[in-house]
């Protein structure tokens, strides 16, 4: 078995992993390695040929591939080690990684710090409980995207989309452009799950109807999908009698949400947050296990890739500091807590002693609200206020807290959002 020793090992070569590796290298980690299971770097960005990526970071509307390209080039320039088609089978709290590929076989990689950047995966039909049979023609939006954008195949000719998250919306447009008839987008909730701009650019511009508070209740067809039954739902998301409608179609596209992919993290038994479905992290995105960092959608599902890259950079910086012994882990951490109307916050704890001048706090609100004020309090004392016209659950919010506002013996920082 091959044995390797590196300073920082990054698991996953998507936007989070790429940014983390580059930053770790820039901050002085000598030997950085990226372990990527796919045949190329970039992660899911490679199948995102639509534009709108990088508005925050580059001030440009890039395609997913274009956005990834910036980072991939940088990785090459900085001579960061990349192992493709390489899968990590096991990680230990001794920071040992067992990874394998066709060329090297099994590798035992010992590292100074480890960054978990495995991204997320899609929820499947069973997780949203759609009744009926199990024919072909029921695919997740990401799989459909891969078939159409990367492989050049059309998985159907008449589609129904379940879920109004961004991937669902973007696939509605993409399929229409490819000549697949999109009958409609169905959303079980009373408000759409995707970004406002995507609803406008992907549905309205193409006259694709969206049906809110309506869901797919049944799949028909034994071998090949023959159609679906949709129904309106009541406030408890139960189908309303008499509203059932059969739609003949040969493709059901499921865009029913993403789940952070934390199988490896769980192996390590890092502390997890039941709301984010990812590890609890600190101001450097370090998990509960010293030297093990997490970044991007593995921590929680972000809606913008810019945030994913940013968290990658924070983790990369943390990893470099960790191997240089610059992180003070003795000092107890302060809790960062979700306050009123806030669903979760990331990071969930901070050690001010290690923090830089300011700390970005990512959070999502529980419900749609207009004319809101975001407040951050330190032990009940307001330390930040900011007004926003609107706050929507699908859109991740971020506020930066100045370090000087958090006094040393404070116990907790709380982020709340109130109307008015």
């Amino acid at each position, binding site marked *: 078995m091959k044995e390797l020793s590196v300073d920082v090992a990054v698991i996953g070569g998507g936007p989070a992993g790429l940014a983390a590796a580059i930053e770790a290298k820039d901050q002085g980690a000598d030997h950085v390695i990226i372990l990527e299971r796919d045949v190329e770097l970039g992660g899911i960005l490679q199948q995102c040929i639509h534009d709108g990526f990088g508005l925050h970071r580059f001030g440009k509307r890039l395609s997913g591939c274009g956005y990834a390209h910036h980072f991939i080039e940088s990785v090459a320039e900085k001579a960061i080690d990349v192992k493709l088609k390489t899968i990590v089978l096991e990680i230990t709290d001794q920071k040992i990684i067992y990874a394998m590929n066709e060329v090297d*076989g099994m590798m035992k990689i010992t590292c100074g710090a480890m960054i978990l950047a495995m991204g997320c995966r899609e929820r499947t039909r069973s997780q949203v409980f759609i009744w009926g049979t199990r024919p072909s023609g029921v695919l997740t939006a990401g799989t459909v995207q891969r*078939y159409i954008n990367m492989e050049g195949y059309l998985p159907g000719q008449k589609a129904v989309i379940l879920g109004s998250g961004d991937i669902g919306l973007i696939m509605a447009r993409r399929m229409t452009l490819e*000549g697949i008839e999109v009958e409609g987008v169905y959303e079980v909730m009373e408000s759409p799950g995707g970004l406002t701009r995507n609803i406008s650019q992907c549905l309205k511009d193409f006259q694709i109807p969206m049906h809110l508070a309506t869901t797919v209740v049944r799949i028909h067809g034994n071998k090949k999908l023959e159609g679906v039954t949709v129904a309106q739902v009541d406030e408890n998301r139960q189908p309303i009698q008499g509203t059932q409608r059969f739609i003949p179609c040969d493709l059901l596209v499921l865009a029913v949400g993403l789940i952070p992919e934390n199988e490896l993290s769980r192996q390590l038994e890092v502390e997890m947050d039941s709301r984010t479905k990812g590890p609890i992290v600190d101001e450097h995105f370090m998990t509960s296990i010293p030297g093990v960092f997490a970044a991007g959608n593995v921590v929680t599902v972000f809606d913008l890739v810019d945030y994913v890259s940013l968290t990658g950079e924070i983790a990369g910086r943390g990893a470099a500091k960790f191997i240089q012994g610059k992180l003070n882990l003795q000092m107890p951490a302060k809790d960062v807590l979700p306050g009123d109307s806030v669903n979760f916050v990331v990071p969930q704890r901070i050690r001010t002693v290690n923090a830089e001048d300011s700390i970005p706090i990512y959070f999502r609100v529980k419900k749609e609200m207009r004319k809101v004020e975001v407040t951050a309090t330190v032990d009940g004392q307001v330390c930040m206020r900011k007004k926003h016209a609107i706050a929507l659950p699908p859109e991740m919010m971020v506020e930066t807290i100045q370090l000087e506002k958090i006094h040393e013996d404070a116990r907790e920082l709380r982020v709340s959002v109130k109307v008015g």
Partner: protein
Amino acid sequence: MKNKIMKVIQENKSLSGYKIGVSVSSEQIVTLTGQVDEWQQVVDCGHLVARVKGVRNIVNDMTAKGIVIPKRDRSKEIQRAIENGKETTCDIVVIGAGVIGCAIARELAKYQVSTIVVEKNSDVAEEATKANNGNIHPGVLAKPGTLKAKLNLKGNQMYTQLSKDLNFELQRPGSLNVIYKKSEWRKMKALEVMKKTGLGHLVPQMRQVMKVPGLKWLTSQEVKQMEPHLKGNPIGGFWMTTMGLVEPYEVCIALAENAVENGTEFRLNTEVLDVLVENGRTVGVVTNQGVIRSEIVINAAGVYTDTIAEMAGDRFFTIHPRRGAIAIIDKSRKGFLKTPAGIRGGKEAKKNNTKGGGASVTPEGNLLWGPTAVEIPWKEDKSVEASDLDYITKLGMSVTNEVKRSEIITFFAGIRAADYMEDFIIERSRKVGGLIHVAGIQSPGLASAPAIAEMVAGLVNQERGGLMDNPNFNPIRKAKPQFRHLSHQEQDQLIQKNAKYGNIICRCELITEGEILDAIHSTIPATTVDAVKRRTRSGMGRCQGGFCGPRVLEILARELEKEPTEITLKGNESYILKADSRQPIVVEGGSHERIEC
């Protein structure tokens, strides 16, 4: 007898108002006709009549309001098949490549006969077998004196050797009946006394239990120790230590592969359209792929055994399809339960003619909840309903309330092939020479499969006389490597030998390209995405093929030298891709031309 049956029906509250026709043949076969309101009444009526003494079996032609089961007219297809002139001759045709058909085929391979197995699906194990929970029952619960009772006991014991020979995984964690009620515990203690003293032999209902080895009675403490995650405070438990666990499709594939290695021919995508009978003897079958002439026809067609019997002019039983839905829990709960466990004394189970269900475990470590038992009119309806999952959840939760519904990664249903006597029908046809029925095989069919196969070989011997041993029979089937079960050292060595084992295709279950290639190029080649899944587990994990689906499809297309658009999920028309987006596609009412740029 007819009057007695009429009386029984009329005295039944839910059936008394209907006009139900009853006729009884000289062989004590009862035929029922008429229309009722609900399908369940059709089934109830059949079961009611089955309990009348002397009834051999029931042909139930009753219908329920609004339910029309169309009869397929096969005459044109038969005509075409005969006219195309393709004809083969062999000694024995086995209809159906489920675990029963495959077990029979492998058993017959021990003798000097030529066998062809025909299967309408694109793979073996495609119907009831793949949707089975994999329990090799100990045989406690079968009714004494039935074929089920006899063959279950024997089959269970045969599995040990079979798993060694065929290299499939068999675990024997036993099965646990958890007892919470004092009255149940008293009954169980009485059972213990009967078993220990041998007194049970005097009680007809107990005779089966007397024959089952390895029964243990556990105290509350012992139960807790064995299964710490069980809910509440059980008074005790009844541990049937011989219960085994297998992956049912793995057993079926192993049997089929070994049969092929010993000279049996399998014809997939081959549907029987007619059974040929001349001068009171079967002389073969007509299939959609031509005629196969044979001296003996074995009817192991699962839910369609009654259809096949009818084709041969020997209609004496009716299969009433009974759906069983199962839910599979994420592997993160591996080791949570060690043995399949159920609560003793469930009322629902009795009503539904099942052994009960509960929480089971697969050899791979997934928890499994279910199955349900719902009578349905349609033999092909494998849909899962909300009510199924409610029931499944109740079963699972009755055993442990720590596992949540959200941990379910998938659910599916299979159809049990039950007849109204609720016993196996394994016999030579009394009307048609050379025809052997292996019908009504529902649970414990999987556990009984090897014993059923032996019994069928015996019937073949009676039919033909003088079955000669096959001196070249090799009972051993070598299993392919399973990467995930190896140590890192062994994995490394495997990759050094063949780099394809170093390429993970299915991330959730850690399945390598090497294993997928093995499946595609195996003795019974996997030609669909689901067939690859059954042989390797790719796509069985928590992402349910989201990541690996496109890759498996690509490998299948490459290896089978087909277009990706020709690859199916599960045979027939179950295509995954509609068109190559670089080709013009034809849409109803016009076409979209594409120009390459």
